[in-house]
């Protein structure tokens, strides 16, 4: 992995372009990335029934193939150039698999601990075979002032009647460049639930490409973010409905403070033939400083009549009524802002069931708020 440098990438491209003056059609990564492969990973817990690595499972001819389905055909949400970057940077993928019919409630937890100047990219493949269920919780962390690069690509295949719960917690230092590239395919009645906590990093690029291929397959995504100081967060979600009666529900909530910059692109693509499909997305952004910049672009593409698509966005400061209510109860304006920020982020955090992960998030947020 060492020495595989990079100077420029176009990532998080919209599936349909709009005015160039908005500068939201894609994002440009212009930092040089020199990978050194340094990163400490720790798998805390491997529940019974979950197989890790290319363990020669039945029906598997390597980590690129699951019962005839080519994992390489799954595209990540960050786009082709990011995909090429991961392919060049990583020779192997970490494969996590639940075999047919195996349902595991206990979470598999992976921690990636990075230090200053660490620069690493990893690839993961998570497979839930027919009627199986698994939960994977992963966090990436470093010291608050550390810098470096951490990129993770996660490809998921959700088989018939299967379910994957994926939790990603990003707590990297303020000088880290971070890529999080997710690509998923859901077969008939397959379910994917994602919880993403984008709290750290200096510049973070997050892309999700969820393809609801099978009948009644569904996706539920909840993302919370906190951008303070000079943090920049660029998100691109694409949910493609191809199967009949597929459904998705994407909620993205967070707060911007100081000089933070955030872009959110969320596309629901109701393709021809996806009769009975329903897609909805919601974004809530709390703006807490005069120099913040927020870009929001919720897109619906509709090529089928027997569908329902909707999106909503609410962007703004704390309402005068809420502020007045809190101040009348003795809270300062700053305390009120912190309380409401916590409320937004915790509404997503509370969906996580792993106590250790919750503790890490809590610790990170208390530290961040103590320095405001």
């Amino acid at each position, binding site marked *: 992995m060492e020495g595989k440098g990079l100077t420029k990438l176009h990532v998080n491209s919209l599936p349909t372009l709009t005015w160039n003056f908005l500068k939201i059609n894609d994002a440009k990564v212009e930092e040089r990335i020199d990978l050194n492969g340094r990163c400490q990973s720790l798998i805390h817990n491997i529940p019974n029934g979950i197989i890790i690595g290319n363990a020669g499972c039945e029906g598997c001819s390597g980590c690129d193939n699951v019962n005839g389905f080519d994992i390489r055909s799954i595209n990540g949400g960050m786009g082709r150039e990011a995909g090429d970057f991961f392919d060049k940077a990583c020779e192997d993928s970490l494969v996590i698999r639940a075999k047919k019919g195996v349902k595991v409630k206990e979470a598999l937890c992976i921690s990636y601990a990075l230090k200053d100047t660490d620069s690493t990219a990893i690839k993961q493949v998570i497979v839930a075979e027919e009627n199986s269920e698994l939960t994977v919780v992963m966090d990436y962390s470093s010291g608050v002032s550390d810098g470096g690069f951490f990129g993770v690509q996660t490809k998921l295949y959700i088989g018939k009647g299967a379910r994957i719960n994926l939790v990603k917690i990003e707590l990297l230092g303020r000088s880290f460049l971070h890529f999080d590239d997710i690509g998923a395919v859901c077969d008939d009645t397959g379910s994917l639930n994602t919880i993403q906590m984008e709290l750290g990093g200096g510049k973070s690029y997050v892309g999700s490409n969820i393809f609801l291929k099978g009948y009644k397959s569904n996706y539920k995504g909840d993302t919370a973010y906190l951008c303070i100081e000079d943090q920049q967060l660029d998100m691109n979600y694409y949910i493609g409905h191809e199967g009949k009666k597929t459904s998705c529900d994407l909620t993205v909530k967070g707060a911007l403070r100081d000089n933070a910059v955030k872009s959110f692109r969320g596309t629901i693509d109701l393709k021809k033939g996806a009769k009975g499909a329903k897609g909805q997305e919601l974004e809530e952004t709390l703006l807490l400083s*005069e120099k913040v910049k*927020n*870009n929001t672009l919720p897109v619906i593409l*509709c090529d089928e009549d027997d569908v329902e*698509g*909707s999106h909503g966005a609410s*962007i703004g*400061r704390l309402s005068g009524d809420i502020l007045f209510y809190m101040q009348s109860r003795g809270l300062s304006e700053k305390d009120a802002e912190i309380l409401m920020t916590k409320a937004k982020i915790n509404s997503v955090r509370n969906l996580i069931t792993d106590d250790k992960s919750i503790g890490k998030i809590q610790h990170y947020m208390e530290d961040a708020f103590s320095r405001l």
Partner: protein
Amino acid sequence: MEKERTEVNDVDRSMYDFRYSDKDSYKVNEGLTEDIVLTISKEKHDPEWMKDFRLKSLEVYNKLKLPDWGPDISGLNMDDIVTYVRPNTKMSASWEEVPKDIKDTFERLGIPQAERSSLAGVGAQYDSELVYHNVKKEVSEQGVIYTDMESALTGEYEQMVKDHFMKLVPPSDHKFAALHGAVWSGGSFVYVPPGVKVEIPLQSYFRLNAPGAGQFEHTLIIVSEGADLHFIEGCSAPKYNVANLHAGCVELYVGKNARLRYSTIENWSKNMYNLNTKRAICEEGGSIEWISGSFGSHVSYLYPSSILKGDDSHAEFTGITFAGKGQNLDTGAKMVHVGKRSSSYINTKSISKAGGISTYRSSVTVLPSAEDSKASVSCASLMLDDISRSDTVPAMDIRTDKADIGHEAKIGRISDDAIFYLMSRGIPEDDAKAMIVSGFADPVSKELPLEYAVEMNNLIQLEMKGAIG
């Protein structure tokens, strides 16, 4: 079992699809060259600055690229477009003096009747030139100026035109703004003095008769401090087998505490590329209201924009788009908040059927200076069959914390639940369907003057058949 659907007829265009020979007209050659631009400038009796402006615009046009977003316009070949067609008549203030075939055209479109019954003034453009312009005496006595652009440019209002012409929409804005700057002709100039409230609307009607021609009219409206105006724009053309182009430009200056309502019923023929640019700027306390109905054209790029420069300025955009067979209509609005406490509201509806493509595209930009501003966007799309397409692409670029922005959008077909609800209250099924579809278009039609609401309802002839799907 395949569900049945509500049948909604295409827009009835029969009243617009008639044509007259253009053999007596003067035309420049097809294509776009410096010689053609100079010929138009000479024909229009341009002052020197305008001639230079046209030539600079042509330079900009040649440098700019076609948009890399939006509907395909590869079927539009500028080498085939005639940019200036002058009908064989001069502008008149009397219908009696207008040549018979042109007069018949506007009679069939109902323009003279509308003037008599409900308008304060009318301008009628046929191909590249105004053929009729008249304003009621009591309105002109208030100091309101309503004239054709050429008269304004070459007469006593030249300086006012020079101060405002393509200052809001500079030729560098996009390729078709540059094209407009180079070859514009026709259009209207309106000036409303301070404090004057024009009680009944003014109207301009644009008719493109010549095949393979472009229409590039320029509308410049200045509403002074405390003044009030409703301006209506209508446009249509007969259908030909060759591409026609409309690349007009509308610039609206709304003064302090002034109000302007700009209503458009666009019903170009389905061989038309409608690449029109409309922009308004509002000073302190000023208000712009756009009412827009887009029914015609083969391809449309249409996004009226409002620059809310002054504190407490306000903009509203209410629009409906109906995309039928062979149509790709990309419509929406842009709002730019600059002034404090500025506010904007976008409310759009779109209907797609018979393979039509309707795209709602918008942007709301709130600059750091726009403290305490508010913006709200609501868009709804109705899909009437599974061979059509409807997309929404709304962007919000917010650069201050002191703003409140709300957005909501929905796409789908007529809800079974809504039909059931109405039927459970005793309303027959067909009536229930009719209520829902006409209710969908209601936010736009209720904003139009009565005569135009009737026209719009004629345009969307809703015919309910069978059960709802």
